[in-house]
């Protein structure tokens, strides 16, 4: 009985810390409608700041707390609201997810840049004191945590219910526009919410750090607990969030305490850390269906879809390029090229899912891992084994999507995050998959009797697969499926009234995307012949999404470039460990800047010829008469056979290139002048 009480007490204290972190998340979401994936990472960052003040610089704990919670965190919150997340509340879910994931990665990048990995610890408050209550040991840290969580609850109550600005916070959830008509400043209200939310994230991290440890990634993952708790209150109710946090704290504590009492527990050593994840998944599944939204005509500007001929020429060109590239290349470099291609295929899975379908997955690497495990376990290193891996991963994808098929956008993304986390911590570490840190082995692929023994031939074979997948995706985009996907992204209500059962369609698309990811994983393991769970860390899925955000989610070119840079990122970090963190930050900043236009840098690449012809040539022609005519001769003046569904219709796209319309007109006048 005493044991039970002890676990209960620990559970309540853990729950109290979760509640603090979760209430910050609820506050920012409910006032600005931005779901902050980076909440945990922000908490992690300020926990390190607190460590720096209190341990490295030796300031007193209370002063450090005041500096972090009273100055650094709120100030950062205001700056984030002002420069990063402003206006995201009304943006498509995909965009706000890319931006907040970028924020998460940036926080980790900055933290690892400033504080090089080394053993660190934040001691508990008053570590020497212990209280014994009826045989249960209670520490001052526990009491402080509990008291602070009550203070936070009380403080938030006073702020929201008893002050004008707090009332305005709640009002801005209902109707920010109306608040403006009342004379209230929605921006000030949002900034305050972010200031308080950031402070609460920091406090949650600092309180949990002695228990969790000063680990960049583990502290970041507090966010899962915060999501799970907040989700019980549907992201808006603070009391329900506290209930959720307490339930979660108790559940985690009991699992840790009693797991070894159950038979077969040795297979479930990974269970305790994923209790919040399972909790989150369960709540997502039980959430009621979100109603369809009816709005206005929306359209996104997309990258041009190449014609079949052009696709063919480019595809063969790409294979040819890879053949030339890899001849006589050293094995280590070859491995990098092969990895880039596998990542490129992984990016293609996002083109289908996110670029065309508008859904966000935060678990593509987990699906790749599933593909690799299946390919390895089937032990048929041929097309059959590959097919089993592809279909098997597709089925797993469907299983993930089915429970949440009634939900949309944000919830689907969170479910994938929970799934990625589960795979990472529970499945990939279990005996039948990778075991802990043991490499998984597989053989090279053989196709129709031809065995790809050499690394060179394997890499070329992978390039062929990339091109084939790209063909399939372009065929989908040009065909019925692609049109329906885009129609669904533009208006779900209309699709429903035209007779589309979107639930199963959504599952199908999700499974298809997972299959492609599974193929990428299987190809990766067949090339490397040995792979570890570390190759499929959930964190990589986040980086992949950012790469996609930077290079573009709507084109094959974007996917290829994204794959190359996805491979190059860890290589560059390995070669320049001094700036490893900065590279994360660079990627994140790129994604924040470009994330609002889903076409990414690839889009600007496509615009380049038109810019040259529309702006540069006329300018040159003015200086050097006669130049314009030559431009015509070189064929720049004619549009090729691409379906440019871009350009002058970008009303619906906040990130669209406003210059495209005038540019196109300039082209026409210029063409007349040249004649």
């Amino acid at each position, binding site marked *: 009985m005493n044991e039970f009480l002890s676990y209960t007490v620990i559970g309540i204290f853990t729950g109290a810390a979760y509640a603090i972190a979760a209430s910050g998340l609820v506050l920012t979401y409910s006032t600005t409608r931005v779901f902050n994936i980076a909440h945990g990472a922000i908490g992690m960052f300020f926990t390190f700041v607190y460590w720096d003040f209190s341990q490295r610089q030796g300031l007193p704990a209370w002063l450090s707390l005041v500096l972090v919670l009273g100055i650094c965190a709120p100030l950062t919150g205001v700056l984030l609201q002002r420069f990063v997340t402003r206006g995201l509340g009304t943006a498509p879910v995909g965009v706000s997810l890319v931006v907040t994931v970028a924020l998460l990665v940036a926080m980790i990048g900055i933290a690892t840049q400033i504080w090089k990995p080394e053993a660190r610890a934040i001691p508990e408050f008053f570590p020497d004191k212990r209280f014994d209550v009826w045989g249960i040991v209670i520490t001052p840290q526990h009491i402080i945590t509990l008291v602070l969580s009550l203070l936070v609850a009380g403080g938030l109550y006073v702020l929201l219910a008893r002050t004008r600005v707090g009332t305005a916070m709640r009002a801005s959830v209902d109707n920010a526009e109306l608040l403006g008509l009342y004379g209230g400043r929605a921006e000030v209200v949002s900034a305050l919410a972010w200031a308080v939310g950031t402070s609460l994230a920091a406090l949650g991290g600092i309180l949990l750090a002695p228990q969790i440890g000063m680990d960049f990634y583990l502290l970041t993952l507090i966010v899962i607990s915060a999501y799970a708790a907040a989700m019980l209150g549907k992201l808006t109710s603070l009391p329900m969030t506290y209930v959720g946090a307490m339930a979660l704290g108790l559940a985690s504590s009991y699992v840790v305490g009693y797991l070894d009492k159950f038979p077969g527990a040795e297979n479930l050593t990974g269970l305790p850390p994923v209790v919040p994840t399972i909790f989150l998944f369960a709540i997502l599944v039980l959430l009621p269906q979100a*109603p*369809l*939204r*009816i*709005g*206005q*005509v*929306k*359209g*996104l*500007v*997309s990258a041009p879809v190449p014609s079949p001929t052009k696709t063919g020429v480019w595809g063969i060109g790409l294979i040819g390029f890879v053949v030339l590239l890899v001849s006589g290349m050293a094995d280590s470099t070859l491995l990098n090229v092969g990895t880039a291609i596998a990542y490129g295929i992984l990016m293609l899975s996002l083109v289908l899912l996110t670029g065309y379908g508008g859904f966000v997955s935060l678990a593509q690497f987990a699906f790749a891992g599933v593909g690799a495990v299946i390919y390895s376990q089937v032990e048929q290193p041929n097309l059959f084994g590959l097919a089993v891996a592809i279909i098997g991963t597709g089925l797993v994808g469907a299983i993930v999507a089915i429970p949440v098929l009634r939900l949309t956008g944000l919830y689907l993304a969170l479910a994938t995050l929970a799934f990625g986390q589960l795979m990472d911590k529970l499945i990939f570490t279990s005996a039948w998959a990778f075991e802990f840190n043991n490499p998984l082995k597989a053989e090279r692929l053989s196709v129709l009797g031809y065995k790809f023994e050499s690394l060179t031939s394997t890499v070329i074979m992978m390039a062929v697969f990339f091109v084939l997948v790209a063909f399939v995706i372009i065929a989908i985009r040009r065909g*019925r499926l692609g*049109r*329906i996907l*885009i*129609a669904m*992204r*533009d*208006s779900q*209500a*209309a*699709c*429903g*009234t*035209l*007779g*589309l*059962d*979107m639930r199963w369609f959504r599952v199908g698309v999700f499974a298809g995307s997972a299959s492609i990811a599974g193929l990428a994983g299987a190809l990766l393991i067949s090339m490397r012949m040995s792979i570890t769970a570390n190759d499929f860390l959930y964190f990589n899925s986040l980086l992949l999404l950012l790469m996609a955000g930077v290079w573009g989610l709507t084109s094959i070119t974007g996917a290829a470039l994204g794959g190359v840079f996805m491979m190059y990122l860890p290589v560059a970090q390995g070669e320049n460990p001094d700036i490893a963190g900065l590279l994360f930050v660079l990627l994140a900043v790129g994604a924040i800047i470009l994330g609002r236009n889903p076409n990414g840098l690839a889009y600007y690449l496509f615009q380049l010829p038109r810019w040259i012809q529309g702006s540069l040539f006329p300018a040159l022609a003015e200086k050097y008469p006669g130049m314009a005519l030559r431009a015509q001769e070189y064929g720049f003046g004619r549009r090729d056979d691409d379906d440019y*569904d871009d350009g*002058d*219709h970008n*009303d*619906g796209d906040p990130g669209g290139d406003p210059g495209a319309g005038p540019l196109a007109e300039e082209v026409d006048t210029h063409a007349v002048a040249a004649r």
Partner: protein
Amino acid sequence: MPLLHVDDVVVQFGGVTAVNHANFEVEQGSITGLIGPNGAGKTTTFNVVTGLQTPTSGRVVFDDKDITRMPVHRRSRRGIGRTFQRLEAFGSLTVAENVRTAFDIHDGFAGLFRSVQNDVDDLLDLVGIANHADDRADSIPTGTARLLELARALACDPKLLLLDEPSSGLDESETEAFGELLQQLANEGRTILMVEHDMDLVMNVCDTIHVLDFGSVIADGTPAQVRANPVVQKAYLGYSDDGPAGDDTAVLPLVNEEVVL
């Protein structure tokens, strides 16, 4: 036997009643108008019929079958098509692709073995927007987008077509042509229920009109009957000059408001 029967439907949003025991029928092959002042609950009623809104109580019977709890897409399969007051065209697709997508969805797997290009062209010709076929749907004027939504709905070959303010955005001659189109569709055997504010159009083409006010049907009849009805005049123009004391006002519910979705 009526094709559609809206039977005592109530829709409440929180404490607010948007549709209050609405009762009306739509006869097979008719053009029926659903009119009423702003906030009377017309669009909410449409949402109930098409399944985008679950009623608090009441039934919707279509083609002899109770469809009150049926999901949106299955109602479409049974033959209910609609257009939207706030446009829901697929903005990233061209006008022709919008219609083609409707065929894609409607035909399912069967569509793989059938070319729909001619059907698409025919529909665009029918509603008169063939000249916009290759324009993106987010770049066309409202009136054209409404006609596009009509063409898209027709691709699913509906028995009952619900049109939500189809003529707003059309000019006079376009509206006239649109009225003729509606009559042509009705002659082909389609049943049309429309919410419309252009009274000239309603009075000209509708066989029957139901007038909705405060979520309830306050009058039914032919255009001439409805126009002559003093209750309707009052609903539209506010108080007549004889003052507020009429008995009929007392029965009107006080709590009424449409919540915009």
